[in-house]
């Protein structure tokens, strides 16, 4: 195993162990998402949603819940000296980017495993769309993880990080959200999922993921410099 992959495993393992022990991010993300679904349910006064409305409610909720996790992603590194510890080690610093993005991806997948069934119970007639929706969720999560990690690593150095993260992140993920809602909309149609332009939207999601993973890999080293 290379030093970089050892470092990747060490950082990811440390993050997941810390989250399991402290539950600082995931419960807040899940609680936010479930509460938002409750508000939509009563605010819209509907027992079922379909098409673009269902897709919009799902993705707006997931995006804002994700921001809670993005905000906290590098807090331990900033406040407990983790940045210095990792910069002092003889490892490629992109291991930190990859590990943090992987940790955020795990948080998002766990969040969705909890809240998407709640969304389905609240708003969907059937669960037929869920298997295809899972593919959209994974691809969108990859993009969110790459972009969120990049922005979080920059914003964490600012005292206004809670404000800065959404301000910078939200415009950057607009294309991702357009593709994610575009792919989800036909899946959530009343009467069962359809696959109109589904492949095109998946390709857009994949392209976004690839671009931001490459951007993260290319610039992360510079972001860690003083």
């Amino acid at each position: 195993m290379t030093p970089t992959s050892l470092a990747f495993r060490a950082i990811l393992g440390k993050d997941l162990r810390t989250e399991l022990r402290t539950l600082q991010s995931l419960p807040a993300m899940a609680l936010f998402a479930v509460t938002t679904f409750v508000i939509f349910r009563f605010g819209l006064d509907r027992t079922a949603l379909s098409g673009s409305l269902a897709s919009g409610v799902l993705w707006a909720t997931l995006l804002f819940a994700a921001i809670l996790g993005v905000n906290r992603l590098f807090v331990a590194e900033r406040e407990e000296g983790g940045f210095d510890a990792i910069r002092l080690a003889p490892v490629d610093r992109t291991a930190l980017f990859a590990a943090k993005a992987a940790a955020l991806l795990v948080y998002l997948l766990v969040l969705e495993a909890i809240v998407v069934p709640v969304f389905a119970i609240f708003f969907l007639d059937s669960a037929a769309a869920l298997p295809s929706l899972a593919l959209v969720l994974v691809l969108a999560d990859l993009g969110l993880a790459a972009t969120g990690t990049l922005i979080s690593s920059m914003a964490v150095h600012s005292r206004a990080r809670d404000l800065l993260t959404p301000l910078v992140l939200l415009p950057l993920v607009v294309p991702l959200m357009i593709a994610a809602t575009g792919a989800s909309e036909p899946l959530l149609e009343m009467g069962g999922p359809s696959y109109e332009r589904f492949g095109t939207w998946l390709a857009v999601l994949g392209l976004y993921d690839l671009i931001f993973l490459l951007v993260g890999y290319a610039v992360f080293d510079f972001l860690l410099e003083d």
Partner: protein
Amino acid sequence: MSESAVAVTGLRREFGERSALEGVGFELSAGQSLVVLGPNGSGKTTLLRILATLLRPTGGQVRVLGAPLPAEAWKVRGRIGFLGHEPLLYRDLSGRENLRFQARLHGLGTEAAEWRIAELLTAVGMKRRADQRVAELSAGMRQRLAIARCVLHEPELLLLDEPDSNLDAEGREAARRLIGPGEGRTRVIVTHDPERFETEADQVLRLGVGERAVVS
């Protein structure tokens, strides 16, 4: 003649308009100790962070363990032990977990790491508290763990910022064993207590606020 372990010439570091270091120079052979003295704000910690590759110099030449900084910083990372103001330990992990994490970052194999961690925990007197979360430990205990972290990967160069801070007599004795002159490592020590280190110093660097550095 062997190459210097640390060679610094005309080092400058500015933070915006403010100059933190101006024209600092010294040369340190392998195994020697340099004690850095100076009032608050004289740039002692900045100097240490530059030598540790954590900060880029604004000007001047810096060579550490034969590598020019910052151009070849990657060559010396892993050969430096850095003990700063912060212990660089995660509060929600135990001392042992923190040391395991550091061992993996430095590429130590599992068996070698466990053996080294057990040895160091004993040396710093933290064996019994090793599995307690760092957040629950006193400042002195954290400093002991930080010393263990600093020497875990057996570095050639030690950069120590107030290494005795928060330590009791027993802790200071453990520190002397692990990061003292007996180990034969090159050391740069920042301190406000020159008497504590005067017998160990091969050179003394005096930094002043707005004055040129003096080596003796």
